[in-house]
């Protein structure tokens, strides 16, 4: 079975700067692959190269096993939703959706049937006669997706499809999108800077930073075992708990030191012994940490700090504690009854703890 898309060693320079460095990955038929990365990491350029709108400096693109580097965009069987949506603002919604079929010179009744069918799936039938510049944000998004679907393609590319929307609409559209994906059964590549898009929608996620592929895995793997410290930070919106330790050999024994006064449990000490690195960062998500007035039985890292407050997220609270200018966070499901500045104990559980080499940033355990 051929892969739907193979991206092979793509290199692209724009104005002397390397925007894409040796990017390679594959997408299976019917899969939704998410390209996740901070703004400016090269995702849009990569999508445009796959679509044929830009030419790579070296490397190849294969769609369904066929090398398409010399093929112009409209012959590549690719459809795209742009970050800016690129709707034809002076045309009606109907005309926008019909556009790809008009270009293919399909018969009028075929076009009419398809347009109404697609509009039905995306629930925009009532907007067909409206001009594209008279729509709300969520409606425009749907029209852009409808237009992309109207084209018969092997691969659908989406560039930040949820970015300019209200938080509420973004959430609703994401769920709808996931449902749609199952119904349509098409191969999709979605570029986004929002980690939630990647986690919620992707069958597989490729993390791109500064034009390089840093990790490729499933959403769950990516979340629990990010291969680099900066990926871990990016995924949690930088609310990672981090503790730095130094390993030194002193008189035949290995000693673990840290500028923070922490109590390390036996099991974690054993883990640390096995790591070949000298400067180690222990990092984990707030959901495996506890911040309370007192914590008993902490299998992991334990330290003391002062309570800084919390973020109310409706169904959960993100609690903050500070110690020697380091910020620690934990997730709690009830309202914390601790006062500002009160002393608290922080326990970072061994479960879910990842060990990173401070110098290289790579995951070691």
């Amino acid at each position: 079975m051929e892969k739907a898309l193979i991206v092979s060693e793509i290199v692209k320079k724009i104005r002397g700067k390397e925007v894409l460095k040796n990017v390679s990955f594959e997408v299976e038929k019917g899969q939704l692959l998410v390209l996740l990365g901070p703004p400016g990491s090269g995702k849009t350029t990569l999508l445009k190269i796959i679509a044929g709108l830009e030419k790579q400096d070296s490397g190849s693109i294969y769609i369904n096993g066929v090398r398409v580097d010399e093929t112009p965009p409209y012959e590549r069987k690719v459809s795209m939703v742009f970050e800016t949506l690129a709707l034809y603002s002076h045309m009606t919604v109907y005309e926008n959706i019909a556009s790809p079929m008009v270009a293919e010179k399909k018969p009028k009744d075929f076009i009419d049937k398809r347009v109404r069918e697609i509009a039905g799936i995306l629930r925009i039938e009532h907007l067909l006669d409206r001009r594209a510049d008279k729509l709300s944000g969520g409606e425009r998004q749907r029209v852009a997706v409808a237009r992309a679907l109207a084209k018969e393609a092997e691969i659908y590319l989406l560039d930040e499809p949820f970015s300019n929307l209200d938080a509420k609409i973004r959430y609703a559209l994401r769920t709808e999108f996931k449902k749609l994906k199952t119904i349509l059964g098409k191969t999709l590549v979605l570029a986004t800077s929002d980690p939630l898009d990647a986690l919620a929608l992707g069958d597989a996620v490729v993390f791109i930073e500064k034009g390089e592929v840093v990790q490729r895995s499933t959403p769950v793997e990516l979340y629990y075992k990010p291969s680099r410290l900066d990926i871990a930070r990016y995924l949690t919106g930088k609310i990672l708990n981090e503790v730095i330790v130094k390993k030194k050999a002193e008189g035949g024994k290995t000693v673990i030191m840290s500028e923070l006064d922490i109590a390390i449990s036996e099991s974690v000490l054993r883990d640390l012994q096995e790591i070949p690195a000298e400067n180690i960062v222990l990092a984990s998500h707030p959901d495996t940490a506890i911040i309370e007035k007192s914590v008993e039985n902490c299998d992991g890292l334990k330290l003391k700090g002062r309570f800084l407050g919390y973020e109310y997220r409706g169904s959960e609270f993100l609690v903050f504690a500070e110690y020697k200018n380091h910020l620690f966070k934990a997730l709690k499901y009830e309202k914390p009854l601790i006062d500002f500045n009160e002393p608290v104990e922080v326990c970072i559980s061994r479960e879910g703890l990842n060990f990173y080499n401070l110098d290289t940033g790579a995951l070691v355990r």
Partner: protein
Amino acid sequence: MVSVRIDNVSKSFGSVQALRNVSLEISNGEFFAILGPSGCGKTTLLRIIAGLEKPTKGRVLFDEIDVTDVPAEIRDVSMVFQFYALYPTTVFNNIALPLRSRGLSPSETRERVVEIAKLVGIESILNAHVDRLSVADKQKVALARAIAKEPQLYLLDEPLTILDPVSRVIMRAELKRIQKELKQTIIYVTHDQIEALTLADKIAVMNFGVVEQVGTSSEVYDHPESVFVGWFLGEPGMNFVEASVEQDSLRIGGKPVLSERRILEDLKSKGYGNVLTGFRAEHVKISKAPITKLDSVAVIEGVVRVIEFMGTYYVVDVESDSAEFKVKIDPRSFSNLSIREGERVWCSVPLDKILFFDPNSSKRIDIGGDSG
């Protein structure tokens, strides 16, 4: 610091009514959020408070003085917009300008600028030209400039919307810290309910030009007064499922889900044949085994349609006949359950976590004796 009162303000633009009879009270030093979807009128309301628009009807009062006819320049208000409007010069000059126009000496100006920059967290980029900054830093400069003016009132219009999701989370925490130190009256407009829940002392939830509810974070989250408020707050929003009030039970799609006497009697005595049940995704427990006993819980049977992994939790979309609702599960419970798309499940919600809403007016029904 100033207290603000909005007295029955209405605003129409031609035939479009942007605001209808809005009345709000904002106390001295309060962080007040106006929360609502795009187009609900919140920005218009903010502009009226700023003096950039005049209300069609109603008054705006600062410390009980009517300022409705006072031009914006005189109201002594600082505004931070969605799209920072910075002067094309260094960060330092942007912050220094309002200080210099107030007549501060160069040394006083420098001192103040550094002080404010430290507060906002940009003292390291004071000499940079604003063109070179990231979007998040630009917004910080806009904020610093607003602080330099030392106004009696701060108005912030969705200042974090243009930031990428990661920067937004960081800036939110920063804002909270700055707010605590400033201790000023701040009116903050946003469509992001987490922002409002986290930052505000009080929240006014708006929709289509009307204030649906005003309250603290927990008040609007746990005790929504209308379907809109219940749906808008929370990620995911409150679930709403229509149920019919029968003799012995509440039924969804013909199947009994709730049989608590007290609730049924109350609803029947109020003349309801149909109600909207509201419950939050995090209060639903999923079980793969059928649940038949209905005491102290409501049970809905359905099929799993979509599973979304959100990192710190999972959202499961369940369909039951024509009803659809979401369930929020923490990762550990999820892996213990191990459900897949297409599986049949039984969802239970504790009765004290269910709210009832009038299907016509969308307002919450007060069930005598319940905690909601």
